[in-house]
């Protein structure tokens, strides 16, 4: 009851913090995809490079978020961005790399070899094959990676309030400071709702970007 009361009384602030949260995650995911997809495609050309890159991304993913935010401070301070949204976004981009790079890599490696052979044999350049066949077939899997990254980022971004990035983490952080449970819960509930909403949106997106020919094929197989 008290939680609802708190949210209603602070509706404007909650709304503003939610937007801020969404903004941080949105910018991070956009950057992550712009960086991760080309890397994922690039490493399909070299197996040894692929394992190195995937291991590095793995290290970032397994670093505790609070530690990564801490590391950001001395690294970005000389540039004047030790605190605030910039280090938060940088950290989220790093976190998102693994699911995006890995999904891109796996999706392109899993393009059936006969399609690659046919494409090559008909005289498609490797760039053309990538654009016309490999990427279109990989896109749904890449979006699935982005979906994982986005939902995960929403959770991690809540912690970024501790380095002054703002967002819904502010409610949790201040609630803890004031030992005021309804405020903590409001933050937590809004973060969860946001995650569920974004997840649903990504699922929709996944369906939208699946090439029609693939959807038709799935329908045929499942009767």
């Amino acid at each position: 009851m008290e939680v609802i009361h708190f949210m209603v009384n602070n509706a404007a602030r909650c709304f503003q913090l939610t937007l801020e949260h969404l903004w941080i995650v949105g910018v991070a995911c956009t950057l992550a995809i712009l960086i991760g997809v080309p890397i994922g495609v690039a490493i399909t050309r070299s197996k040894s490079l692929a394992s190195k890159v995937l291991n590095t991304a793995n290290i970032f993913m397994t670093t505790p978020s609070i530690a990564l935010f801490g590391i950001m401070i001395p690294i970005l301070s000389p540039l004047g961005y030790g605190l605030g949204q910039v280090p938060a976004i940088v950290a989220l981009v790093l976190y998102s790399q693994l699911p995006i790079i890995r999904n891109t890599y796996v999706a392109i490696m899993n393009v059936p070899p006969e399609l690659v052979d046919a494409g090559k044999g008909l005289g498609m350049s490797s760039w053309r094959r990538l654009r016309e066949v490999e990427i279109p077939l990989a896109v749904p899997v890449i979006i699935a990676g982005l979906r994982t990254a986005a939902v995960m980022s929403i959770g991690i971004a809540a912690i970024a309030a501790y380095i002054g990035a703002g967002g819904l983490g502010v409610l949790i952080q201040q609630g803890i400071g004031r030992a005021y449970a309804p405020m903590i819960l409001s933050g937590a509930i809004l973060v969860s709702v946001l995650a569920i909403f974004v997840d649903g949106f990504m699922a929709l997106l996944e369906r939208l970007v699946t090439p029609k020919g693939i959807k038709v094929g799935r329908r045929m197989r499942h009767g």
Partner: protein
Amino acid sequence: MITYENVAKIFGSGPEAVTAIKNISFEIEKGNLVIFLGPSGCGKTTLLRLTNRLITLTRGTITVNGQDVMKADPVKLRQSMGYAIQQIGLFPNKTIADNISTVPRLLGWDRKKIQERVGELLAMVQLEPAAFRDRFPAELSGGQQQRIGVARCLAANPDILLMDEPFGAIDPINREEIQNEFLRLQRKLKKTIAFVTHDIHEAIKMGDKIAIFQDGNLVQYDKPEIILAQPKNQYIADFVGADRALKVLGLLRVEEVMDRNPSNVVDGKTSANEALKFLEDKGFRHLVVLRGGKAVGYIHPRQLKYETSPVQDLAIAYPVRVDEDMALRDVISFMLMHDMRVLAVMDGDGNFAGTVTYDQIQKRILEMYAGEDEKKPAKDQE
């Protein structure tokens, strides 16, 4: 025209090196469909893939229409040749029209020309253009997909086609049909084709010439009938099978052995006694009865005895129709089924053209196999 000159391919290096092709030289003449035949691992597919540089040559020279493939730009080289594979490899995200027009789009044809060409090709492979153009590969049966694969490899009208078991992925009945269609097309289009298969029946049926490989060597390169009649060694004899005489019969046509002017022919209006007398005078065992240029049937002496009516009323109709271009294997099969040693042959208009006999067929086979020591052995390409 494609020429292979001292072609060798070694995969890997050092102690793990595998020699896939040892030292092969031969040429595929313009307009010929040449079969690359052999068991898996004999090097036939490797040789095909060397031709459009999907694999890089280790030694030797391959030229396509006079151009050394190693000096050509690989992408342009491949665009200039059709390519079809067993797994078909249609792009599932593209419509049938886009799949077929892959190479024309790479070559930058304008949209209208591409559209027309797609319609033309779909009609060529016996699929209704309006119904198939905008569908996706997943909506097509295996046989239809294979047809699209063939259409795609013909799309930019290349002189040369490279086909790796292009009909390998479909059931025997559909395969038979698509082979026939493809042969009909090839008679019209006269492409220069390298066609890989491990199926001896397909090889004999489709090939103008057959190149048989074993362990990376070319063992024999000849016309199908010569390979069947004069296999160069035991390996090839085993490969073509113990029934090779029957396979040769599958290649020979009635017109090659038939008697165009048989003398045991009688007009239908002749009376039975006259016919009987004619039979006994000449010592024939039976007569072919004609009426108005068509064979109505045959008669034996025992049917003529004590009869007076014209022979056309007594004749027994032939149980099957034999055409001049029918394979001798089918004729032999009819003879066995109906216990007949002579059949009447009809020309294209259904008129009597002559007779074909069991003895003539057997004589032809004996000639072919007896030739093994007399005739010069087929020209080898070592």
